[in-house]
């Protein structure tokens, strides 16, 4: 699947979409494929603080746990409650309905370090070859 152009991407396979200072964060299609059937998601609470490149939650499949790293620094304004009872949404629609959290960015310039869809697709090709 071609990666959505309007999103930005991290090396840890998260994506972020920024709208007027609020970033919506999720994990990429590559990440959900690597994990397999997702069974549980652990997320922060609203108004928790997150820091760029630091883990803020975990995603679990049957046999693996992965930490989720925040692409940006800021305060959590919303958490996707649908994932509580339907973690399999992350497998079905990782870039859309299965967003994880929304963050109010403390420093919008942090997103300048992130990858575009094209860069990310190239990055994945390289990772697969290793």
């Amino acid at each position, binding site marked *: 699947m071609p990666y959505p152009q309007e999103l930005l991407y991290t090396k840890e396979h998260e994506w972020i979409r920024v709208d007027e200072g609020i970033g919506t964060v999720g994990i990429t299609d590559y990440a959900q494929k690597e994990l397999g059937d997702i*069974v*549980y998601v652990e997320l922060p609470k609203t108004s928790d603080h997150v820091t760029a490149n630091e883990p803020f939650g975990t995603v*679990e*499949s*049957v*046999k*693996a*746990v992965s930490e989720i790293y925040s692409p940006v620094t800021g305060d959590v304004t919303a958490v996707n409650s649908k994932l509580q009872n339907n973690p399999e949404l992350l497998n079905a629609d990782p870039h859309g309905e299965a967003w994880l959290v929304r963050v109010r960015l403390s420093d919008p310039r942090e997103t300048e370090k992130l990858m575009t869809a094209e860069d990310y697709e190239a990055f994945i090709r390289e990772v697969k070859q290793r």
Partner: protein
Amino acid sequence: MRYLPNSPAERAAMLRATGYQSIEELFAQIPDELKLRDRLNIPGPLSEPEILEYFRQAASQSTREYTSLLGAGAYSHYRPVVVDALISRGEFFTAYTPYQAEIAQGTLQAMFEFQTLITQLTGMDVANASLYDGSTAATEAVLMALRVTRRRQVVLPRTLHPEYRQVLETYVRHQDVDLKEVGYSPAGQIDFGKLRPSVTAETAAIVIQSPNFFGVLEKSAEVAEIAHRNGALLIFIVTEPLSLGIVKPPVEADIVAGEAQSFGVPVAFGGPYLGFLSARETFLRQMPGRLVGQTQDTEGRRGFVLTLATREQHIRREKATSNICTNQSLCALAATIYLSLLGKRGLQALAEQNLAKAHYAAQELGRISGVAVPLSGPFFNEFVVKTPVPAEDLLAELRKEKIIGGLNLEKYYPELKNHLLICVTETVSRAAIDRMVAVYRRMAPLPKVSGRAAELDSASIGRNR
């Protein structure tokens, strides 16, 4: 050697196939200077009859000729022969951990049944497939409460099994945890006056044992109220779970954990035993140990699998809920079989027998002048007795009657000199109890009375001799 299935010719053929010239070459990666040159100084090889003789000799220096009145966390109950007959089936006891679910449905279903039985007994929502023993189960319960509440203080009763407390201390020594002890009342129960001020917004959990180390039952509702009011958890520890055959389960607790050795696991000089841990549903993902869950296969057939493995060490490694790997599967199977045999009525009847025996013994002892049953709290099959003469002297006399009279509490409770902890289960006959009582009576000093009462009393004492 009878256990090794290859003949010299077969070994030679396999060696040829590997391309190595000699067995020594197989070990060539071990530097010569590190190889063993001498013969190991160990006995053997012994044939089967010789092995039997060796262990029979050891068994002859045991307490098998004695009646034991010891409890204190390890209980002598009758084990129906069906338990060993079933757990001795090779498919059960030689199997590994059921990671390959398709060929381990026997173990998995039995563990699912075990988990269910524990929740039925304790009144909790979920139980794991066992931990090493009661002491580590109690410790894991505390560690769980610390994780859940993110607080650092734990309130413990002085009546928690002393060795359980020691284990907990070992585990939390490097974890920045504050253990606070609360004493007991004259009834032998937790001292509420001391408990209330000890519980604060820093407290992660209150730990209560019931029956406690003195055999006395503790009420859960009141302690739960104190805990919850402060945002702390209530951890209930049970070392004699047979009591749950007649005692109300601590449904107000958050975690109920302890020792299930009473259910078909031999006393065996201290192990292996059977730890259990059960909790409210909300704490599920913080539970340590293996969990068996129900599911379906591709054809819709019910089956069982190990689940929520992501809590465990083989996945989370240093972030695991615990370092535990093995559970006590075969012991849990024994318990499941034992409880299936006893069933609803049998468990209650057995518990009632234990109650009757212990209360009869306590009553008879209490009648003797100079002997006291000092704790007034209700008890199940264990109680404390204050001896009329030094405890060690009494125990020595009892040994002459082939009775191991109980645990001298002074070792753990210096304030309880000449106090014995006596456990009377269904395995102790009335005749043995009466023999024990007779020794107490014989050793108790004559009561000092005066006048007519003295004549009457000495007459009756003469008759009882």
